[in-house]
């Protein structure tokens, strides 16, 4: 079955990203397809490559990135939510004249249309967050 995942909360503050990760991992292990993981609202914070949690804590960003690497996941960060919260890739840095970038290379910034497309293309959309 084809799943789409939506995450609305940031890492370490809310369990949403952890729950979504465990769900996505279990779905992939069962042989399901995950069409896209869409990070919306504070969920865009899951995409910063500068995260440095204590060594005995889980690294939420890298954990997503590793899952994406293993399963060729498409992980999309909402552009409007990212701009508000300072999540920047090369394209956004150039467009908005920023002097730095922080988006992890396994994520990409795109628009809400990507969420709608994921919902249409997938058989189930599972939403995590408040």
């Amino acid at each position, binding site marked *: *079955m084809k*799943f789409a995942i939506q995450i*609305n909360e940031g890492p370490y503050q809310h*369990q*949403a990203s952890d*729950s979504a990760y*465990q*769900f996505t*991992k*279990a*779905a992939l*292990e*069962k042989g*399901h397809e995950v069409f896209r993981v869409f990070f919306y609202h504070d969920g865009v914070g899951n995409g910063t490559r500068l995260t440095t949690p204590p060594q005995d804590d889980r690294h939420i960003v890298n954990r997503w990135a590793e899952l994406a690497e293993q399963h060729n996941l498409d992980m999309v960060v909402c552009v409007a939510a990212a701009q508000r919260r300072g999540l920047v890739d090369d394209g956004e840095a150039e467009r908005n004249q920023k002097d730095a970038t922080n988006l992890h290379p396994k994520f990409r910034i795109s628009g809400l249309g990507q969420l709608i497309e994921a919902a249409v293309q997938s058989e*189930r*959309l*599972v*939403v*995590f*967050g*408040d």
Partner: protein
Amino acid sequence: MNALHTVNKSPFEKRSFDSCMGHILEGSAVLLYEDGVYAAMKGTAMEGKVKSAQGVRFYVLGPDLKARGVSEERVIDGVEIVDYAGFVDLAAELDKVVAWV
């Protein structure tokens, strides 16, 4: 259309469990996870609500019970404990997933 309803907030903190209970139809299922697992505990005001829902299956996420120190013996009889793989199976089995966030 039978839906899987997910509730992730404690019924003692937010109204999402009650909102969910007010909309569920026979044949649907409810999964309690994150702080929603508190709605699956015996001896609270939620027990009667869970038991009186006709034709609705209730599930609770085991890892989230464990993370909160709630033992399986304290789960309402008839509420099935599942893991993340069970969560995935429910999402696939029911026609859609409704998140009561």
